[in-house]
């Protein structure tokens, strides 16, 4: 099974120190919030950037989703702060 791609933007990217990484695919019922918690448990920049999930937003395969959404068979999870375009 293909690994899960995680991509980061803005201060989340700066905090974790990378744009993108691949992880072993979790079970399909795993939610984005579960993934965030497991990444934050790595400590360091990850804990800082991902420790407070209220400050985070996410997209699954380029669609915004609430953090309690199951990752299912999504190819790509993106984690980022609330957007500030326009």
């Amino acid at each position, binding site marked *: 099974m293909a690994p899960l791609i995680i*991509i980061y*933007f*803005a*201060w989340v*990217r700066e905090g974790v120190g990378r744009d993108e990484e691949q992880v072993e695919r979790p079970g399909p019922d795993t939610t984005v919030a579960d993934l965030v918690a497991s990444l934050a448990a790595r400590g360091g920049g990850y804990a800082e950037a991902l420790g407070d999930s209220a400050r985070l937003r996410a*997209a699954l395969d*380029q*669609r*915004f*989703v*609430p953090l309690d959404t199951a990752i299912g068979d999504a190819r*790509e999870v*993106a984690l*980022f*702060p*609330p*957007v*500030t*375009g*326009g």
Partner: protein
Amino acid sequence: MKRIAIQSDDFDVAGELAALEALGGGGVASFTGIVRGEGGLVALELEHYPAMTQAQVERIVEEALARWPLLGVSIIHRFGRLEPGARIVFVGAASRHRTAALESCAYLIDWLKSHAPFWKKEHFADGATQWVEARAEDEAKAKEWGEERGRE
């Protein structure tokens, strides 16, 4: 006409407006957002999610076309490093109805502010940097238009 461009280069507002004016609708409205050079800001750095941005902006253009009788919509959003006075974003709409043209511009810019995958970082003269925080006010404005299909 539907035109969406996500680019680092500046753009030609006159050309965008001329294309909308040529649609024969009778009314063209536009909004252009520009970098403000306040508080010692020397540059705004715009990051975006390339794989998502175009599709996401297309969704909202489709929403606007479904809501208002528009003959054309044009959206340009820049990314990269922009200095004070630089254009960031352009939204234009053509319609037979002035209210439709103006309202859809308001809708499009409100939506871009709170639902397009862009992030802004401020660079100041003293070397400090700061990520712009999302404003609750922007989120509320977008919500006032009601929920869109496929927004979340």
